[in-house]
């Protein structure tokens, strides 16, 4: 599978990263290089193998459904690039 320029553009949009048109050819070549190299996995027989999602050797734990943290509004907002009072500020979304 080889990526064309339109697919590179689509992936960048999905990833919400602005890419200039001039950067597309280089990105296309790098990504195709990596994807081509990854295709060596097609040689592995994976018939009947269960996928492994992670290395943790346990079932996910349960805990009581209770509030055990919170009340940290100032801390949550402390790093906001822009805020008004208790709100994060973003450009106007609805006209």
């Amino acid at each position, binding site marked *: *599978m080889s*990526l064309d320029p339109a*697919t*590179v553009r689509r*992936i*960048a*949009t*999905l*990833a*919400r*990263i*602005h*890419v200039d048109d001039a950067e597309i050819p280089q*990105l296309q070549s*790098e*990504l195709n*290089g*990596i*994807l081509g*190299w*990854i295709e*060596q*996995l*097609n040689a*592995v027989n*994976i018939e009947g*193998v*269960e*996928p*492994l*999602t*992670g*290395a*943790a*050797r*346990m079932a*996910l*734990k349960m*805990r009581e459904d209770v509030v055990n943290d919170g009340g*940290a509004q100032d*801390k*949550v907002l*402390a*790093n*906001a*690039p*822009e805020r008004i009072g208790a709100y*994060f500020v*973003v*450009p*106007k*979304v609805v006209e």
Partner: protein
Amino acid sequence: MMLTDLTLAAARSGLRQRAFTSRELTEAHLAAIEALNPRLNAFITVTGEQALAQADAADAALARGDERPLTGVPIAMKDLFCTEGVRTTAGSRILGPFVPPYESTVSANLLRAGAVFLGKTNMDEFAMGSSNMTSAYGAVENPWKRRQDADAVLVPGGSSGGSAAAVAARLALGATGTDTGGSIRQPASFCGIVGLKPTYGRCSRWGVVAFASSLDHPGPLARSVEDCAVLLGAMAGHDPKDSTSADVPLGDYQGACGRSVKGMRIGVPREYRADGMPEEIEALWRQGVDWLREAGAEVVDVSLPHTKYGLATYYIVAPAEASSNLARYDGVRFGLRTNGKDLCDLYERTRAEGFGAEVRRRVLIGTYVLSAGYYDAYYLRAQKVRALILRDFTEAFARVDALLTPTAPSAAFVQGEKMDDPIKMYLNDLFTVPADLAGVPAISVPAGLDANGLPIGLQVIGKPFDEETVFAVGAAIERAASFDALPTIRAGTAQ
């Protein structure tokens, strides 16, 4: 002897015997940082005032008999661990302005154990790299020099390159790192120090800036196996705030360093070889096998047939998880913001400006392999190969107690090398990636020098939660190698 030359264990004894104070020990390290960091760039942030306040508190604690595992011991924190009130960048522009309002569990554990924090160490951006060249805060210089080409500036490895360089150059007695594909062990090998990646879940990931959550392992770097054992004992432990943190009792890690390997079965996996790997690495590996045999271990040939697929598997799984984890950097709640014409444009421009080239590549690869229509072909297939890699280890560990391999297929290389083709850089992690995918513990121990006088490490891989055996075998290699070479640039050397 200078205070900066002590091992962490020796410094701790000296503090307890009042041979010197934590303030003296901390000042010696801060002076070394001041002298050498402008050149090495191992620290992004130095917290001198805070360190001295912690040192004074430690001296007061020792005076009243409050001795904890690390009371008064100055160490460095990789800049991936959130530290309350101290800027944490993850080596990225996008976190340039970020000051965490909370402390990571690992750093909190270390503070509770009495440690003094000298500062935050440089690293590849979001821990993505094997050379520290992707840091937004500049490259790190490896304190080791080639005998023949002493002007060449070498990389310290990565991603925990700042931690490794700081410990090797005696700017800190030990440091924390994280290992997702080899980021503790490869820089330890390149800088002639010891680095341990514990079992997945042994050290909490809470408050560690996430790269690939199923692969991220916090762990220690230090100048001896015993020092790493002391640090692991203080860092590790069950944490309810990390859902993958293991509720498994800790071992006696320091005690394990003195344990004999007599009667242990050590596996030598025949697949740990690479095209173009220098013969001296192969020779050192054979030497390591001989050392363990002489120490009474039984050496067994084993096969881990899916080893060669580790890297390709990793470069699907890690970018996939990274693309999801890094979605949080949107310029709205914290970190860098670049304004745009609307909200979507703000996201896209913030991320374009905030992420470096390697991070962008991996986020794009990850987005692609998770996208509709390609998920099964890439991500699901990789997860199945990952299961086979784990099965290789499980089958090998039915026959042996530990495995011995080289840590990396080369010694440290020159800054700028391997930058033209991402895959060349990825090959650095050929021998370290499988243990991350399987979540098993592994240590790199400096075992010898190459013809250029650069350090080479050997790797010991153990069973899940059996760090004790890893320390025992690592310490046996350390004793046999009696590695006492020193880096050219270190505290006390003229600049």
